[in-house]
């Protein structure tokens, strides 16, 4: 008896009318290994190349799995397997640069990274007796500078950004012209190139304190120009996610609008807002150009953000390569150390944010 479901006929007479022929369970793995061996073997004859091998293996695998599935299974499953393979390849392609970058930074920076590097100011010492210049590697000035400049930028940006978001979501009417202007300006600010923000901050401070306006504060102002729109956007999204039902429940208890916003809306949205702020910090902590312009660079330890050049980790990485000191190798190594340190800092911030977000998240558990 031949059974037809939706116009398709099973290729094999199965005992179960709903069952269809299937490829073996591990067919994808076996086909991949087979494709790798075949392609590898062929390439060995003409000259082996890792990249070509990977690309050809992927192409052969996609074709093979499609043909095999079409022959044994049916058209729908064949399409499924091919698309699944393509999606996986796309994912791997997207991950390769990321892993490669991380690998390079870790591999080159790890040798540099030790406690002395973090806790010591890098400086060149001139020894008058031997007339030799020795360079001591150190990133303390850059670590302190990064934390101070990013910290000040966060302190400036978070209140402005959060209050703007609260105005947009809780107070402005959809038709209000001010709301449209603010939204438009935030969109424009999101697109400002960071170098422009740096020039803006530097010229602003040059107007106030004169031509030698390099300072951590002016770099922080440049970063907050970049940071505010991100904080506004992220907070706005999170505030909009708070259901109106909760606001109404609060109003119906005779709670004022201000207290409703502080204790219900912000409290419910806080975990998302914290995540948004940390993403904004991670976005600006790696900025180089605006800090280079506004805070210049220095090997001296300067913890005073109000005056004098200040070093940050990305700027240290940049100058270590672009303007190496007497000992070029040491400068380059310091650059890689700074890069790794920066990555670690960002990871630490992300972990802290996750813990905080988890702590504040609305609880649903029984």
């Amino acid at each position, binding site marked *: 008896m031949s059974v037809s479901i939706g116009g398709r006929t099973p290729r094999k007479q199965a005992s179960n009318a709903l069952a269809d022929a299937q490829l073996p369970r591990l067919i994808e793995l076996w086909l991949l290994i087979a494709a790798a061996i075949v392609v590898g073997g062929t390439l060995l004859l003409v000259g082996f190349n890792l990249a070509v091998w990977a690309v050809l293996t992927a192409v052969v695998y996609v074709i093979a799995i499609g043909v095999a599935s079409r022959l044994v299974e049916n058209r729908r499953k064949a399409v499924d397997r091919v698309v699944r393979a393509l999606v996986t390849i796309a994912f791997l392609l997207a991950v390769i640069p990321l892993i490669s970058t991380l690998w390079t930074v870790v591999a080159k920076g790890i040798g540099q990274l030790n406690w002395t590097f973090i806790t010591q100011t890098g400086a060149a010492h001139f020894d008058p007796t031997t007339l030799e210049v020795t360079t001591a590697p150190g990133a303390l000035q850059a670590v302190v500078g990064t934390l101070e400049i990013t910290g000040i930028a966060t302190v400036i940006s978070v209140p402005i950004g959060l209050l703007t978001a609260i105005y947009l979501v809780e107070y402005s009417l959809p038709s209000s012209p001010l709301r449209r202007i603010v939204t438009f300006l935030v969109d424009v600010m999101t697109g400002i190139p960071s170098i422009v923000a740096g020039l803006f901050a530097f010229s602003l401070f040059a107007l106030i304190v004169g031509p030698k306006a390099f300072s951590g504060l002016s770099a922080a102002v440049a970063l907050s120009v970049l940071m505010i729109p991100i904080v506004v956007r992220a907070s706005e999204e999170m505030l909009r996610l708070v259901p109106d039902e909760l606001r109404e*429940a609060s109003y119906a208890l005779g709670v004022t609008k201000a207290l409703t916003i502080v204790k219900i809306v912000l409290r419910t949205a806080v975990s998302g807002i914290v995540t948004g702020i940390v993403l904004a910090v991670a976005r600006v902590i790696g900025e180089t150009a605006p800090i280079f312009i506004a805070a210049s660079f220095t090997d001296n330890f300067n913890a005073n953000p109000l005056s004098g050049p200040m070093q940050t980790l990305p700027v240290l990485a940049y100058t270590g390569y672009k303007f190496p000191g007497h000992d070029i190798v040491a400068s380059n190594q310091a650059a890689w150390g700074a890069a790794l340190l920066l990555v670690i800092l960002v990871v630490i911030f992300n972990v802290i944010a996750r813990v905080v977000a988890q702590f504040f998240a609305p*609880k649903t558990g029984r």
Partner: protein
Amino acid sequence: MSKRIEVNDLNVYYGDFLAVEGVSMQIEPRTVTALIGPSGCGKSTFLRTLNRMHEVIPGAHVTGTVRIDGNDLYAPGVDPVLVRRQVGMVFQRPNPFPTMSIRENVLAGVKLNNRKISKSDADALVERSLKRANLWKEVQDRLEKPGASLSGGQQQRLCIARAIAVAPDVVLMDEPCSALDPISTLAIEDLIEELKQEYTIVIVTHNMQQASRVSDKTAFFNIAGAGMPGRLIEFDDTTTMFSRPSVQATEDYVSGKFG
């Protein structure tokens, strides 16, 4: 505790759109009044004008008067926040605050207003409110669990406990059982019966049996057509409304001929 509500020639507008027209009714203290009628006829809108919750929607405004024991809610200088402290509300979907525990939810009306309350007073208030809401036995061992961990029916009773914890004079209920199963519905209807001893209750419902079970008075709202304002068609004792209403439309509606 309970108070009389007098509504006189009330029109409700959303912007320029007249949503409810010419409603006048008297709601006696310690009674349950049911508002019935087809969807979109303005029952919920009217209910919300009784504690000025309609003002949450931009552009909503009213003409006419609503007096609670003689005080006009819409007189100049009336603070809607104070109105809502006297006229509590329970919504269609249970909406406990997700960041708060069961205990904190009951105390929300007190705590959110930054009022100081001693631990023993707070404990007493939590127990009293939850007992009034028939929820105490089910949650007394887990007051610190999140409010969202309860079932839908329990959440709705938690919301009722939260509403009565601020000691309002009037409790408005906007289809409080429409998201609940029959057992939970029964629990809430029993609760309404008990709350009637102390509070004036106005309830919107789509369930005709519920209206006839719980209410003393019933108001039937209807709408002439799309884009037309909703009107109060008939307002009378519930037994009269369901046995021999004076308006044909009411009879058609309660007997299930339309709606």
